[in-house]
């Protein structure tokens, strides 16, 4: 085939071939679409179960002694409404109940800027003692081996087993904002021992909690009666 001939082999010049092309592409696209929707429908229950399990695990990790988890929606008026299984809501909190059905704590999500990217954490809050009782890093891109210790270092995580976040009388904020201190110098219940080599990431966790505490904890305290009755 010479070059001149090849040039005439364009779709416009040959309507029969362009029809063939359209048929081929539409055919492949249709089959692809069907295949994807079949697989989506087929895997959806398993994926949902996986997600729910991952969330339960995360909540279990931040509140000691939890047996069941109920998701609550925070409405715009600041009220709490128990959420049906597969419903989504903009602002949520997770109430954990122990074996007797008593409220063991509330798990709240918070996020903020870390060293590399946004850090997402889930923290457990005990409304009776007004303590943070555990944290879990849901998502972070902190430097492997250094910053990512915030989710692994047992000494650092021990900071959050009984961290004082008592609210002021008027619930406008914490009595003592959290302070991140040098490793080994923690002396107050509202201080966090940082990790050597991961100072910025440690401070970021403190900052994220400090931003979340005055915003979310008053809602928990206001709605304590709703939370205490296990739906």
């Amino acid at each position: 085939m010479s070059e001149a001939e090849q040039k005439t082999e364009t779709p416009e010049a040959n309507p029969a071939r362009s029809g063939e092309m359209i048929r081929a592409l539409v055919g492949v696209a249709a089959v692809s679409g069907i295949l994807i929707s079949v697989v989506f429908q087929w895997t959806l229950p398993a994926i949902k179960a996986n997600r729910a399990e991952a969330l339960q695990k995360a909540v279990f990790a931040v509140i000691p002694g939890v047996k069941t988890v109920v998701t609550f929606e925070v409405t715009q008026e600041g009220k709490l409404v128990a959420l049906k299984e597969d419903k989504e809501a903009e602002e949520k909190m997770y109430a954990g109940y122990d074996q007797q059905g008593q409220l063991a704590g509330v798990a709240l999500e918070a996020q903020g800027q870390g060293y590399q990217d946004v850090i997402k954490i889930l923290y457990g809050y005990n409304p009776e003692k007004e303590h943070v009782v555990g944290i879990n890093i849901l998502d972070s891109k902190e430097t492997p081996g250094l910053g990512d210790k915030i989710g692994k270092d047992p000494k650092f995580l021990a900071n959050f087993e009984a961290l004082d976040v008592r609210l002021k009388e008027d619930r406008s904020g914490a009595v003592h904002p959290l302070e991140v201190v040098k490793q080994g110098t923690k002396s107050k219940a509202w201080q966090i021992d940082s990790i050597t080599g991961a100072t910025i990431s440690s401070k970021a966790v403190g900052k994220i909690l400090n931003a979340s505490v005055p915003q979310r904890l008053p809602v928990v305290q206001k709605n304590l009666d709703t939370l205490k009755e296990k739906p």
Partner: protein
Amino acid sequence: MQDMAGQTAAPTLETFLEGIWKENPVFIHLLGMCPVLAVSNSAVNALSMGLATTFVLVLSNIVVSSIRNLVPSQVRIAMFIMVIATFVTVAEYLLQTISLEIYAALGAYVPLIVVNCIILGRAESFASKNPILPSILDGLGTGVGFIIAIFMMGALREILGSGSLFGVALFGDQFEPWVVMILPSGGFFVLGFILLILAWTQERMKGEAK
């Protein structure tokens, strides 16, 4: 179709083995560097990435090969991409049902399998010119070659950078991990090192043959 000329291979063991050694997509062709460097920071990630890519590679080879006579050559690339994207989406859903943790660790690199040049390359240079059986063998061979390469990188980087393999600590508490190895720069170090050794071995083998 007029453009059906080109090599046709019988389904032989050679087709399969070629992708593993002589035509290894990573170590010889240096294709698919993006996932190889990015997600080879642990053995599990590397292995899952390798398996997902092989899954897409074999299935897209089958489809491309079976409809190779029905699709006009002008739209073949568009068709390849569509087929590959479909199987990548399928692989994404399957991966989520198997493990959300691995899915999260692989992140953006799962959808990016769509533009993995190994898969498009095999579709264009092999599957679109050969019958189904050799195409399957070619896909499997190239896929296994890719798995070997990315797993080698992943295992080496995890051992050096975290002191563990598949999350199991290999050394005692005394071991100070060589953190740079699981950072992006470590990927380049390890890849360069492996390529150096391979080139050196090949050079020696050539010398001995003479």
